[in-house]
């Protein structure tokens, strides 16, 4: 490539590099600097690991970290199992049932915030489900309905994510299934494979790369998203993004470096997890290149 061609390519890339490099990478770098002790508004201007060390010993951080891990894992696992099942069910009918296909996309199009707000009407102690349960005589008052919002298990958060992410997993899986057709399964059937053997040794390996990528996206998203735990979760312990937001917006400016440290730790954790997960996937399933990469 000649010098002028190289210059042309550089020019084409420049605007995107300014946005990603300046705003995203620059933002990350500034966050790191703030969390390491440079935050003049709170009178900090010397290198320190104090904010990170404080996180290690802090009860709220540990509880939130555990909760965030647990909820992200559970929501991802349930969504993957349901999404995969849904895709396998829909596969046979995807061709002649366009309506179901469109319906599947609706939850995807609904912003997480809207889904969380909408769910309150459904699963609150006086919500529609509680009313139905009451009308069949299972409970006598709203207080008897199990708490699903702001509860210790984060049930509402999990329900919201499962409703949103199941269709996502299903669509990613369906795309692969439709593209591949069912020739491999037919072949396995001719060779005498049972339904379970076909699923275990033919279908699942075929969709594994797509499912692995999609579940990675879901986990990373749930781990770092704010709106759903903010609307449906409780305040202590809250998921990490909620804790970080609360401290960042606190009137007490000295809490801000702690908030930034939490956010930096979150980014680190997700980055490391993505890396480990990809390695594991390569070893266990033989996925060389998951579909989104």
């Amino acid at each position, binding site marked *: 490539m000649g010098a002028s*061609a190289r210059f042309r*390519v550089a020019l084409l890339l*420049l*605007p*995107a*590099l300014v*946005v*990603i*490099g300046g*705003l*995203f990478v*620059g*933002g*990350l*770098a*500034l*966050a*790191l600097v*703030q969390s390491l002790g440079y935050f003049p508004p709170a009178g900090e201007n010397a290198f320190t690991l104090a904010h990170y060390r404080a996180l290690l010993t802090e009860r709220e951080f540990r509880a939130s970290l555990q909760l965030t891990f647990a909820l992200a894992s559970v929501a991802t696992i349930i969504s993957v199992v*349901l999404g995969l099942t*849904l895709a396998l*069910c*829909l596969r*046979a*009918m995807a061709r002649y049932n366009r309506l*179901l296909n*469109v*319906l599947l996309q*609706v939850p*995807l*199009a*609904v*912003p997480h*915030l*809207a*889904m969380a*707000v*909408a769910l309150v*009407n*459904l699963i609150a102690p*006086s919500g*529609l489900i509680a*009313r139905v349960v009451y009308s069949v005589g299972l409970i006598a008052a709203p207080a008897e309905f199990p708490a699903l919002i702001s509860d210790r298990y984060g049930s509402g958060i999990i329900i919201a994510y499962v*409703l*949103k992410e199941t269709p996502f997993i299903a669509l990613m899986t369906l795309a692969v299934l439709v593209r591949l057709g069912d020739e491999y399964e037919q072949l396995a059937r001719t060779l005498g494979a049972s339904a379970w053997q076909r699923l275990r040794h033919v279908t699942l390996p075929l969709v594994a790369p797509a499912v692995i990528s999609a579940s990675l996206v879901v986990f990373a998203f749930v781990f770092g998203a*704010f*709106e759903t735990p*903010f*609307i449906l979760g409780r305040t202590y312990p809250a998921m990490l*993004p909620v804790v*970080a*937001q609360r401290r*960042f917006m606190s009137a007490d400016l000295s809490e801000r470096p702690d908030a930034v440290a*939490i*956010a930096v730790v*979150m*980014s680190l954790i*997700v*980055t490391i997890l*993505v890396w480990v997960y990809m390695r594991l996937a390569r070893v266990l399933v033989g996925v060389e290149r998951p579909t989104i990469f």
Partner: protein
Amino acid sequence: MNETARTALERNAKIIAAAAIVGLAMIPLALLFVWSFARHWYWPALLPREYSVRAWEYIGSPPAGVITALATSIFIALSVTALALVVALPAARALALHEFRGKRALLFLLLLPVLSPSLAALMGVHALFLRYGLTDSLLGVVLVHLIPTVPYSTLMLTGSFSNFDLDWEAQARTLGAAPVKVWRHVTLPAIAPGLAVAAVFAFVISWSQYLSTLFIGGGRINTLPLTLVAFQRGGDEAVTSALSLVFLAPTLVAFVVVARFLRDVG
């Protein structure tokens, strides 16, 4: 049981299972609709006793601030979409059609904001914008919305450029077409479907932003999601439901348009 009866049963069971999972996600949305027209809906009634358009009239009235928020949201999302595409188009072209050193690193850099939590970057950007007076401003909010939208648009457009052949442009030029004409009649038609999808996604991503708008807008820039959260905390279910519908309607329409468009184009 014979073979045909069993497949029929299997298929029905599958349809029911699929419909159940899909239907589950629709219930909360249907409920929003009913709630938005409820005058009262006291425990334990399964349906409202009285209906009214109070909530809709309220959010349509200027004092509610919803109309201003709607205008702000539309303005921001359209600006972000336009800017994101202008930034993403050339980058996608370079990524899809040219080989250069550091290409893999750049692709990784584009995936990072898509995968990793945005909080840390947002907090850093807040410090940066504070210094340059971009906090509490529309411009600041538009700029911060570029962080999630530019990577998505670039990755999507890279896909649509990957089937593009540079020789098509060369042929048009040989035939004497000016650069604008080449773009208008050769390049644009070839990438139009991808461009439309990328535009819709950029719009929807910007439209749904909550935390970035809150951080950079500092509560001064009120978009629909911020207003929705305020009303949700206020506890008026009918108004919150009506507002939720206003908030999610454009994203629904956008998805349907994209789906149809993609089908028509093939």
